[in-house]
């Protein structure tokens, strides 16, 4: 009779037909938030949740940042640690941490933005060529795998290979438990278009000039062009001027300062923001005023897509 403790720690080895396995990586999404149980109940709900998260402000806890499509990938995992005994026995002692490098196309400005994530511990979701999202599970929440990312690029092209506009990302997975033992998938159907999940561009509200309570505020993509930033006024000025701005002063800018009007200035190609003159006059000289723009989701609903307006601090 064999006495065994195996049954207390092992699982059966049968498998379901058509069980998923990771396909070729198509893209990754940096997501430090969660997708709750109700939001992954169906592929459509999961896709809608990721789409909504991609349209949040970059400062939101649940924000999802998606990277462009992968153009090249290579494994960069640490080798397993092996040990042996001198009579020929050899065994794997410890699993190497998984990792990989992938390349995608991006310009100088995107490289700068990507490098703000260098060596940050983030969570990533993987989307493969079969339309399947991969991540891990914590309680009943779907989460991305913990990882550190490092981005390189911006070197001169040598003409020997496809190098121009290529950014490389090194992914170092922190937890083999999450990545191998606790890996979960959500498949998508043809109805869910990963292209709906979009990255946003930072558009900085910028002080131009003022006359008492009337401020001229520009909207610029700072970019990498030495000659100057890109003014989005022509494309989106009117649409943005019709949306709701707010303003605040004081501690955490929690005291509301009334805005009476927002208009387009077609000459200066900027917005004219007018504060209530009585409230404005009551402020002390030098008071900092935070001008808060509409959210990315509000902009998106007004057909100003892939845009996050960043607030500006004005001074009386």
């Amino acid at each position, binding site marked *: 009779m064999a006495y065994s403790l195996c049954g207390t720690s092992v699982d059966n080895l049968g498998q379901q037909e058509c069980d998923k396995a990771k396909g070729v990586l198509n893209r990754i999404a940096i997501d430090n938030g969660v997708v709750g149980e109700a939001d992954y109940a169906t592929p459509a709900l999961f896709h809608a949740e990721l789409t909504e998260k991609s349209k949040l402000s970059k400062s939101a806890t649940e924000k999802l940042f998606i990277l462009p499509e992968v153009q090249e990938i290579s494994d960069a995992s640490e080798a397993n640690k092996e040990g042996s005994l001198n009579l020929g026995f050899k065994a794997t002692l410890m699993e190497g941490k998984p990792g990989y490098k992938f390349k995608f196309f991006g310009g100088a400005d995107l490289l700068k933005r990507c490098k703000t994530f260098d060596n940050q511990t983030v969570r990533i979701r993987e989307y493969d060529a079969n339309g399947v999202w991969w991540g891990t599970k914590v309680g009943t929440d779907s989460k991305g795998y913990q990882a550190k990312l490092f981005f390189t690029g911006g070197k001169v092209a040598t003409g020997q290979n496809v190098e121009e506009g290529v950014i490389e990302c090194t992914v170092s997975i922190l937890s083999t438990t999450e990545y191998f033992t606790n890996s979960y998938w959500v498949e998508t159907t043809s109805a869910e278009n990963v292209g709906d999940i979009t990255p946003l561009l930072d558009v900085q509200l910028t002080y131009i000039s003022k006359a008492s309570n009337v401020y001229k505020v520009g909207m610029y993509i700072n970019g990498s062009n030495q000659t100057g930033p890109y003014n989005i006024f022509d494309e989106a000025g009117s649409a943005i001027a*019709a949306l709701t701005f707010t303003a605040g002063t004081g501690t955490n800018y929690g005291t509301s300062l009334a805005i*009476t*009007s927002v*208009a387009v200035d077609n000459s200066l190609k900027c917005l004219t923001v*007018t504060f*209530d003159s009585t409230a404005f006059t009551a402020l002390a000289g030098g008071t900092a005023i935070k001008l808060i723009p509409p959210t990315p989701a509000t902009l998106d609903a007004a057909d100003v897509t892939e845009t996050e307006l960043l607030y500006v601090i004005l001074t009386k």
Partner: protein
Amino acid sequence: MKVINGVTFYPAAYEGKTEAEFIEHESHNLSKDELKKAFAILSPKKKDIPMKKVPVDTGEA
């Protein structure tokens, strides 16, 4: 909020304000005539409802 002639007017611009105050405050955005028309839209005057004559029964035969 309403957008009139390309200017988005917030409630603070017209609520509790007279036409003259509104025009003075927003004069950098539109002309006086345009602001007059805008104010009429944003803060329309209440129309007086004429009193109906209701016969009173004095009890006389």
